[in-house]
Every structure is written in C-alpha cells, then in structure tokens.
C-alpha cells in the first residue's frame, strides 16, 4: 500500500470519527431522536473494506455507526439530515436514529432493522447483477452477534452453491449488546464457518485498516472474476456502549481502557503513517484540518434543512 493510499485511509477513518462527533453534539443539543450505535473503534474496518470496492458495487451496511456510508462517499450533510429527520436526508425525513439511509447511485441498498435481514438481500442483489450481466460485487457487513441468525446460513449456502460475487464482512467486536461472542458462538472464529459453505474464511486485524483493505481487495477480485464468495472476519473493538446511553456496566473497565488506548484505528493508522510517510506530521495535520472543516460545513448545512410536512408520512408506501 502506497503513501497516498495510507493517507487516504487515514482521512477516511478520521472523517467517520469526526462526523460521528458532530452527530453526538447534535444529539446533545436534543436535535436527534431515536437511537445511535456508535461506530467508534470500528472505522478502520469500514473504511478499509469499502475503499476496496469499485464504484458499481453494492453495499449492505450494518448498524454500527455511519462509517459505511461516509466511506462510500455519501455527502456527509445528507447523512446528518437523515438523523435530523429533515427532507434533505436520503430518506426525505422518514429516517432518524437507527436510520434506513440509502443511496442507490453509490449502490448503498439500505439496511434491515431486523438484524440479519440483509444477508438474503445481498444474495438477491448478486443474483440480479448476474442476470442483468453487470459485473458487480456485493459487500455485506454484519456483526458477530448477527452471524447467529438463520438467514446467515441460508444466504451463505446459496452464495456458496451459486458462486455469487459476495464479500461477507463480519465486524467481530466480541459483543452483541451485553452478550459476549464467546458465550453465543460455538466456535472461536466466525471465519471457521466459511468452510461449511465452500468459501474461503479469512481473519484480519480490523484495527489495521490497510490489512482489511488488502483482504477485501483480494476477496472482491476473487468474486469479480467468478471465484465466488469470501467470508472475512475483521477483529475489532467497540469503544462505546451498544447505543448512546448504554453505560456498558457489563464490561471490564480495564480491558475497555486498554482497547481504547492500544487499539484505536485512528492512532494505529497515524503511527503507521508516521513511520513510513515523509512529512507525516504535516500531512496528518492538513488532513485533520480539512476533515474538520468539511464535517463542520456539513453539519451547518444539514441544520438549515427543513422538517417534513405531516403529509410526508403518506408518501412512497406504494410505487
């Protein structure tokens, strides 16, 4: 991975982190209704993997923050507007909180609020691309807890037997709300399940965004060239509560502090850049300035949007 790419990943990660900070300010201001599941700690996975996607590919994201959409290039103010419930959001005011953001022009197909609903939808998107003879790969994100839903089995088996161009990307942060991965999964690694579906299973350090990028690149290439699906398990950390407001008293403080200190994807990427990129400090500084102002601009822009009229609730029930 060259310097520009590393800096690009850093910028992406920072963008996700700072965008989220901005969202939390809005939440503190009482502008946001509903729930938010912070992505803090997992930006490296989301940015690294999505950077490996081609423009025409499809994305099914998970609920852990909004790094997915931001990394994919959705206008940041649009994502804010979704949380603000404004007409300028992608859902034109319907979404807010755990939103159903979508952006078809970037292949962002939305999200199932019931976890695991996206697995089978990913299969459908891949089938559809094949039938329409378009060379698209589907990247489907999900949490370790979500991997225990039956839909995973049905979708992974179909993807395997039909050799569909899908990358299954598990963000294993070791937790599903208050339940540990260990107590809910019969094996020590989700990637071990890949063999049961005739696909490669890859474990990667999710805090190393470049490593995630590389693993995803290989999987996407394989998928695109007809080699079928891959299951990538990115080992990562959830820095904050399950949702904003969850004090996560069920977690060991010491371990959490260590994760925050040693496993922050921003710091890890910055350190890597410092050790390999000339002029690192200046570059990092410049990126930070740029992203901060972009994020602030997006927040300002979003806040000046308009709330939907009451009649909005009747729109788009049917086409």
């Amino acid at each position, binding site marked *: 991975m060259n310097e520009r790419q590393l800096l690009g990943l850093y910028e992406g990660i920072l963008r996700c982190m700072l965008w989220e900070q901005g969202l939390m300010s809005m939440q503190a201001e009482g502008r946001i209704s509903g729930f938010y599941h912070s992505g803090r700690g997992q930006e490296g996975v989301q940015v690294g993997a999505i950077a490996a996607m081609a423009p025409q590919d499809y994305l099914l994201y998970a609920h852990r923050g909004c790094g997915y959409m931001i990394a994919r290039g959705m206008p940041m103010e649009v994502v804010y507007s979704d949380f603000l419930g404004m007409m300028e*959001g992608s859902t034109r005011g319907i979404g807010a909180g755990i939103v159903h953001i979508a952006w*078809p022009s970037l292949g962002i197909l939305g999200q199932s609020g019931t976890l695991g609903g996206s697995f089978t939808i990913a299969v459908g998107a891949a089938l559809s691309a094949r039938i329409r003879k378009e060379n698209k790969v589907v990247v489907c994100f999900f949490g370790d807890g979500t991997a225990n839903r039956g839909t995973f089995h049905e979708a992974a088996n179909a993807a395997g037997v039909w050799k569909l161009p899908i990358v299954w990307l598990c963000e294993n942060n070791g937790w599903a709300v208050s339940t540990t991965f260990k107590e809910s999964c019969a094996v020590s690694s989700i990637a071990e399940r890949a063999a049961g579906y005739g696909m490669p299973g890859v474990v990667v350090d999710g805090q190393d965004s470049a490593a995630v990028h590389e693993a995803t690149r290989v999987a996407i290439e394989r998928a695109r060239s007809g080699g079928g699906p891959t299951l990538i398990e990115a080992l990562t950390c959830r820095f904050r509560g399950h949702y904003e407001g969850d004090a996560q008293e069920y977690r060991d403080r010491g371990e959490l502090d260590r994760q925050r200190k040693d496993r922050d994807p921003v710091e890890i990427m910055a350190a890597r850049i410092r050790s390999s990129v000339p002029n690192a400090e200046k570059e990092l500084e410049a990126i930070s300035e740029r992203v901060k102002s972009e994020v602030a601009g997006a927040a300002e822009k979003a806040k000046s949007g308009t709330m939907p009229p009451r009649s909005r609730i009747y729109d788009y029930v049917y086409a």
Partner: protein
Amino acid sequence: MARAITYSEALTEALAEELDRDPTVFFMGEDIGYGGVFGFAHGLQKRFGAERVFNTPISETLIVGAGVGAAITGTRPVVELQFADFVAIAMDEIYNKAAKWRYMHGGQFSVPLVILAPEGAIGGAGPEHSQCPEALFWSAPGLYVLTPSSPADMKGLLKSAIRDPNPVLIMPHKALLNTSGEVPDGDHLVPLGQAAVCRAGSDVTVVAWSAMVPKALEAARQLKGEIDLEVVDPRGIRPFDFEAVLTSVRKTGRLVIAHEASVVGGPGAEVAAVVAEKAILHLEAPIRRIGAADIPIPQSSFLERWVIPQVDDIINAVRETSGKAVSAAKLA
C-alpha cells in the same frame, strides 16, 4: 377469442409470457427447475434457461429475501413458496422487508417482487400445508395480496403483478388448479384491486374469493328462484375494492362474506367492519361471515371437510340473512 384452459395452465402461461416479454423477469423456488411441486414452471427452464428459471435450496427466508434484493436492483423476480403456509417462515421478509423497504428508505427503491404461494385445503395436507393466510397481510402496507378464482384471473392478475412496481403476494388456491375456464387470447391483463361481479343478483350480496367463488356460484345456482345472489369477488385483499362491495350491499341490503380462512381473525373481519361502518343504514340484517372453524386444520381429510366451509354453509348463511332460514344447521 378465448380458449378454455386450466387455472394451472393459465398460471404457467402468464409466467411464460412475462419471461418472454421482459428479460429481467426470473423465477426461482424449490424444485422449480423440474416444474415445481404443482407444476407451475412446467417447461420453463428448458425454454428460458437455468439462469432465469431455477431451483433454490430449502431456504424460505432466502427465497423471499433474495427476491427483495433482486427486486430493488433492477430485476423482476417471481419466487415460489411451495405452500402458502410457509409465509410464516419468511414473514419478516414479506411483512417487514418486501412491504416496507421502499417506504423506510424514503422511496428510493421500488420492489417489483411477486411471491407465488399456493394456499388452501385439498384433503389431507394438514395444519401446516392447508392454510389461507390472507388475514396476516391486511395489515401489511406496501404489499398487494391477490387470490385469483378463475383461470382468466389467474393469468391476468399474475401478469399484472409481474409488471407492477410493488411487491405482490399471489396465492393460487390448490383446489382450483385443475379447474378450467375461458381465458381471453392475447396479452390478457387484469388490473389489481378491481373486484369482479361474478353473478349479478338482487337479494343478497355474497363476497367470496379464491376457492369460495365457485362455491358461492354453486350456492347461487341452488338458491335460484328462491333467493337471488350477487356474487362479488374482490380478487384479493390488498388493494381491496370496497366500492364494489358497498355498491352491491347498497343494492341488496344483505351481506354474506365467505372465505376459506377461519372466521375468527379472518380476512372477512375487515370487510365486515368497513361495511358496517359505511353502509350500516343500508343493511337490513346483520352481516354473516362464513369461513373455517377457529381450530387448526386436521391432517385427516375425513375431518378436514368439517372444518372447511362448504356450499351448504353459504346457503344457510344466505337463508339466515334473508330471514328465510328454517332451522339452519350450524357448525358451532
């Protein structure tokens, strides 16, 4: 011109014509490659290739969920659940994904998905392979639900459903598969949400759908000369053509609703409730609902026939609502 074909043939014709017309239409489900357990796909894989007509594993959430994924990305999938009862297995995919994906994502997608799921009792298929689950979908905004009662409707509704930009659950009745009827030649389409007056009459309105339509018509025949039935087939429940029902009730003043699903919690409740709300002053007698008993369907066909509503049940209800019941034998 028209030809007499079976309901099942009409279904296959509709699929074939739409597969032929639109290269984004495809058909998948269990055993579909070979034609499917009810033969709906007979000959289609050979004609349209295994990329467009193909088998799935026994994975009902996949069948519907993948249908949604394919529908929001530019194809028009038709997917089959082998029995309508299996809607329960894919309920989240039908009720919460297919129906709501468009709305909850702000209108950015349409979901032109057709789910074919044969319903109804045919003697001995038991409590998990005999149900008519329409009632479950009255509360599914975003979804259309159709229940064709004749070969012509089977063909015309399925073709319209495939062309519609919305998800459509279409439940052919298994007991109708071998029934025959005239089907117009050419590109026969039946609009969604438009009731058919299958028989005009003046005394009592019978709203019946699916396999209850032939039974209602038979009741009308048997009552001829005594009570003149108007048989209205809404052709499904979403969208429901209340106007047609109300028009008929305003004329006859008496309403019997007949469906095969159980009366308790069945789809007729909404019909009865709306008619009672909107036409109460026209009603000359209480509305009568005919349907299955409030029990699971026994596996034994010997017992099943006592659960499923029959022609006599309609006749009795009609007589009661007309004040002409002598001592109608009632089930319970």
